[in-house]
């Protein structure tokens, strides 16, 4: 079965995030991008499906700093093909991304019609929409999100999919393929790929660049960011200081006073 995995680069929140001088966006000077964590799970799920059913896994991402590393890593992990969409206007929102992807996918040469399109169920910068459902609408495909397990039945053109609910409950759904799935967690944590393999792939394989065709479609009115700032805590914990023993004693007092003990 053929699986298309959409990977997205998002700001790495381990690094200190700074706001640009206009106060409306992230300062790109110190910004480092990293693959959206849920997308890494989507890739893993796709690779697991490929191991079970064969077929081809194509990874596709919009051009962004460090995206090549991410795509080569995906190839090293076992993806068959990596495509990078270039010539994009900068600062695309998630919603615009979905419509541009819907527009560009048919123009990617030799891209097999995918039985499944997998991507992370959400990203930390999804301000104006989530990619998977929006793309599903654009492509008129069935969609399910918060997916933690996919069991495909390629012959019957369907998949049995588990979705997460509160309290550890899972919902089981039958999804006809082709479909778009938003992955919450792969069946197994994303695999480790040694640096040497990624380096070897960088020498032996290439990333296909596909420019996006120009568009005149404005889409729905955009969400406008008035201000971006570090959250000002309206409340902050009362901090207890001192040695562990002192802290423990203070906490003991508080808990006793609150009747927890």
């Amino acid at each position, binding site marked *: 079965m053929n699986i298309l995995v959409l990977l997205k680069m998002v700001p790495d929140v381990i690094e200190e995030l700074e706001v640009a001088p206009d106060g409306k966006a992230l300062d790109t000077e110190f910004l480092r991008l990293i693959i959206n964590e849920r997308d890494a799970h989507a890739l893993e799920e796709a690779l697991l499906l490929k191991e079970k059913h064969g077929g081809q896994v194509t990874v596709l991402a919009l051009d962004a700093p460090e995206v090549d590393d991410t795509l080569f890593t995906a190839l090293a992990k076992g993806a068959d093909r990596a495509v990078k969409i270039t010539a994009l206007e900068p600062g695309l929102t998630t919603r615009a991304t979905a419509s541009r992807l819907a527009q560009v996918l048919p123009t990617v040469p030799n891209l097999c019609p995918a039985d499944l399109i997998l991507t992370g169920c959400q990203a930390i910068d999804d*301000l*104006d*929409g989530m990619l998977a459902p929006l793309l599903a609408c654009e492509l008129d495909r069935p969609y399910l999100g918060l997916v933690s397990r996919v069991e495909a039945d390629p012959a019957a053109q369907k998949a049995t999919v588990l979705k997460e609910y509160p309290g550890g409950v899972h919902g089981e759904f039958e999804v006809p393929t082709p479909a778009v799935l938003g992955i919450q967690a792969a069946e197994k944590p994303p695999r480790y790929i040694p640096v040497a393999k990624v380096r070897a792939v960088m020498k032996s394989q290439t990333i296909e660049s596909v420019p996006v065709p120009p568009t005149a479609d404005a889409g729905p009115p955009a969400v406008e*960011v008035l201000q971006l700032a570090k959250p000002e805590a309206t*409340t902050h*914990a009362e901090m207890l200081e001192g040695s562990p023993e002192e*802290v423990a004693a203070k906490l003991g007092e508080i808990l006793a006073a609150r009747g927890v*003990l």
Partner: protein
Amino acid sequence: MAGNIWVLADHWRGQLSEITYELLVLGRELAAEAGGSLQAILLGHNVKDLAAGLGAADSVLCVDLPELAEPSADVYGQVLAQLFQAKQPQTLLVPLTNALWEVVGVLPAQLQIPFVNFCLDAKMVAGQIRARCLLYGGKMEATVTAPGPVLLGILSGARLADQGRAEKAPAVEEVAVTPPGSSRVRFKQYIEAEAGDVDITQQEVLVSVGRGIQTQDNIALAQELADAFGGAVSGSRPVIDQGWLPLSRQVGKSGASVKPKLYLACGISGAPEHVEGMRNAALIVAVNTDPQAPIFNVAHYGVVADIFEVLPVLTEEIRRRQASRAA
């Protein structure tokens, strides 16, 4: 009608969820600012009884059809689009819950209106929605606006749920819609969480561990403290993902929402997905090495320290106090 605020009610397995009440409180404020009325949208099958719980709204628009038994992107999307076309509300508030996940996801495309995700708060400014959203895992906060009718995806904790409960029964309007087709995605069944483990929602004290616990073995440290309290150990998503605690112990999105007397967050940074499951605890104490960790914005008391230094000492302290109390 222009100026009306809609709240899409979230219900799962026959019960309205807490966040629905929170949205009603927020919706009420917005309706007052917009000069419109607050309407709750209730979709489902055999859900008329639930309408009684939505008294905080001026009225309830209810569509009750067998096809709506389980939320699905296809069917809910179609029905909401019909309602939206017919009634033209000013703003639609939707809760970011697991049950409505797909519905929220496809609505911006179905309704062709702007969507604002991760909202913590919203108000009307000069007739336009202005919303506060948590981005980048809670590290940044954006103030945004959008013209025209807007769809707001609201995080849990935006308001206090209790203010959204009302005694009075609302006016319920059953709306007839063109029957939607059947959903392409077919619900089959629920698979329950593995039973037999501790029910963390019933505990008075939870010692909750996050990524900072580092190894599975260290969970024993938290367990000792929990034992001293007579409570249980719970965890955040990374700890569950590693398999160090069973799924039944997860607090937050896809896990449980807990309200213990004491919630002790050990090495938990406080991502929004976790916070939504524990913010209602009566007393929250957080221990983390990072003084900037967002958990300190939720906690009542905070300690910047290595959990491995604090936990054993605290365990001793609690044991001592419990022993002297027993004596």
